[in-house]
């Protein structure tokens, strides 16, 4: 069913202040392009374990460790690839019924 609130998205990396911040920017652009109302935060993979977002995005070496953290876990190699991320988001959010 459709999400009746803002989508909570977490961008993760090892330290939580460099790469994940870059990824947050890319994710905001990708979600904007899809017209999704979302709040994107960035953090390190350890802190992420205490959170309960709707979507987690990170590199495979990190998402493998937190594969159960969210209904949607997206692995991305290129943190600057907006189009690639938007395509993955579209598919996975549609699966959840969060996108029409």
């Amino acid at each position, binding site marked *: 069913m459709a999400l009746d609130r803002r989508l909570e998205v977490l961008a993760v*990396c*090892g*330290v939580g*202040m*460099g*790469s994940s*911040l*870059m*990824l947050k*920017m*890319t994710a905001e*652009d990708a979600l904007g392009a899809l017209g999704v109302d979302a709040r994107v935060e960035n953090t390190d*993979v350890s802190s992420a374990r205490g959170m309960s977002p709707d979507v987690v995005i*990170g*590199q*495979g*070496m*990190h998402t493998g460790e937190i594969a159960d953290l969210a209904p949607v876990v997206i692995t991305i*190699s*290129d*943190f*600057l*690839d*907006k189009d690639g991320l938007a395509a993955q988001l579209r598919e996975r959010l549609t699966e959840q019924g969060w996108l029409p």
Partner: protein
Amino acid sequence: MTVIAADDGVAARDWREAVRAAASALVGAGAAGEGYPDACERVVEENGPYIVLTKGLALVHARPEDGGLAVGVGVTRLAAPVEFGHPDNDPVDLLLAFCTPDPDAHVGTLAALARSLSGGLADRLRGAPGREELAGALKEAVPDA
């Protein structure tokens, strides 16, 4: 005010030397303390090669308490690329390093850098004729530098 550093034609035999060189540029510019290169190397050791965030480009950094004295951004262009062990984005020829005195001071600078990278900054850095132009291209990408 963001401190800018640039180094060109740096010889590195492996990722460790490349990371240390990139971090040392910030030390040389006065933005980071002596221990910063060690700390940056440790980050990769402990967390893996995820800092290679797009094809050929690594974002080198450690934590504020590891020696961040000011917000600084540096670009280091290698004489020859090195492998980080990243599954998709190796080999790396370009390193961007940053440091920050606290967990928030760098956010604006890094956001600007992210926008510029999306707008082709990496290609402009690779195409720069020399050190001066490298520094110039980076400076353009960071509005308060």
